[in-house]
């Protein structure tokens, strides 16, 4: 099980000339569950966005399944779970409709959904424990259930690689457990996972390797580091804010 699924070599990413990632090299092989850890602003989300081609890299190379990112077309092999569901313009959509979008990578734009598509959507809804909410508008779900909807959408495409951006941020305990279970099943079936996390929580036993990003560089690559200081205490409650509040108002960007 040493086939490389993701290879980043000397990757550099900058927004408007400000470097966010400087010289990142990372390899994820088939069957691994790699967590990218780091503080806010360390560039960990940018790293997975660069892997997926959502932000351009200014130097270095990204290779997916042995193909340079620019020539990679087998998107059905990848399931992407963004941080949160966009609010959209208020047009309602059911949980099933959102999850069904996950089949498009496999089916293409022109072919109407068939029996296999419906079965895969049912299976994905079941895997995250949302089968009974399939017909409900996603806007009526809790934050954790919406996150599970997005995971089901990625699973519906039956990918080989799951890429998740902070899947447990602001998610209730029940949803975190449901999510950890879905992830375990996915890995047991031979899947590969790359996820960004701030804290691992119930995911910790599933993770096989941790990569810590600090100031745009990889500071650690190996075993999952133990929480330091008072974070390590068993009854530690995480109470400090995870990022500075942005000034809310008309003029904030």
């Amino acid at each position, binding site marked *: 099980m040493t086939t490389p699924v993701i290879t980043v070599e000397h990757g550099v990413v900058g927004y408007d000339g400000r470097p966010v990632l400087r010289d990142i090299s990372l390899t994820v092989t088939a069957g691994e569950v790699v967590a990218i850890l780091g503080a806010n602003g360390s560039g960990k989300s940018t790293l997975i966005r660069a892997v997926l081609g959502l932000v351009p890299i200014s130097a270095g190379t990204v290779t997916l399944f042995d193909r340079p990112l620019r020539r990679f077309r087998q998107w059905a092999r990848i399931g992407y779970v963004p941080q949160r569901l966009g609010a959209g313009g208020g047009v309602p959509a059911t949980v099933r409709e959102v999850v069904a979008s996950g089949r498009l990578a496999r089916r293409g734009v*022109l072919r109407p959904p068939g029996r296999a598509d419906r079965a895969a959507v049912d299976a994905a809804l079941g895997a995250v424990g949302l089968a009974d909410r399939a017909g409900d508008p996603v806007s009526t779900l809790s934050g954790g259930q919406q996150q599970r909807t997005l995971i089901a959408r990625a699973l519906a495409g039956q990918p080989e690689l799951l890429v998740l951006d902070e899947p447990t941020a602001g998610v209730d305990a029940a949803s975190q457990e449901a999510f950890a279970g879905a992830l375990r099943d996915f890995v047991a079936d031979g899947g590969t996972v790359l996820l960004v996390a701030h804290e691992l929580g119930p995911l910790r036993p599933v993770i096989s390797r941790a990569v810590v990003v600090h100031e745009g560089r990889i500071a650690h690559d190996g075993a999952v580091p133990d929480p330091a200081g008072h974070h390590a205490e068993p009854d530690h409650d995480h109470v400090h804010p995870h990022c500075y509040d942005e000034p809310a108002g008309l003029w904030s*960007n």
Partner: protein
Amino acid sequence: MELFQYPYMQRALIGALVIGLAAPALGIYLVQRRLALIGDGVGHVALTGVGAGLLLNRSPVLVAVIAATIGAVAIEIVRSRGRTSGDLALALLFYGGIAGGVLLVGLSDATSANLNAYLFGSLTTISPADLTTIAVLGAAILVTMIALRPALFAVSHDEEYARVSGLPVRTLNLLIAVATAVTVTIAMRAVGVLLISALMVVPVATAQQVTRGFRSTMAAAMALGFFAAGSGVWVAATADTAPGASVVLVAIASFLVVAVAGGVWRVVRRRATPTVAPTPEPHEVVLS
């Protein structure tokens, strides 16, 4: 009802019904991507096309389709670049479009009645050739919007996810832009440049108050658009009012009726079923 024995009234009715069906089928994607007013902007640009057509003695509708397409694609490029100055660029396009239209119409031999026909619609002057154009283009819009619903939904709902799914995002976005331009130009004859957005957006706004899913919203919005177009033309014929304005006012009246009825229904249901207070989720943090 005997008014509808006249061919020009039949053409007016059929034209309005086609647009009533097609405009919300496209409009739902525009509402979902928060571009509810884009139809207005494209309409302004189309007016320059009308002016150019009148000046050059070409079919105003044809030149307007070209101008509106260029405008819609330009707006899409500005949108996809995501620059903060996007709304200023759009403002320039809108006002440039309407000023250009007024200027060019003024230069041509056309009268202000001609300009009014495009600004506020002129259903009863639709010629058989116009009706063919409206029916063919309207059917094309309708088929495209329904057949590509899963892909267009995905792109409008979550563009980044659509990109990672390998969907041809840019092509789909341009398709929506061009479809907007075409819909605006055929709807121009029915409700006029200044009221086009209403037919695209108001039925969707009405439908989404009571629907739960995207597909049901689309179906309900199309039914509402069809109803507003039909009854608007009927009101215009019997009460001798402006057809375009009548259609839009029927659509807005439906919105108000549904909004009020929906509100009453929710209050009644809440009274009828004494709801248990939802159990709150456990606190994630302990604030000491």
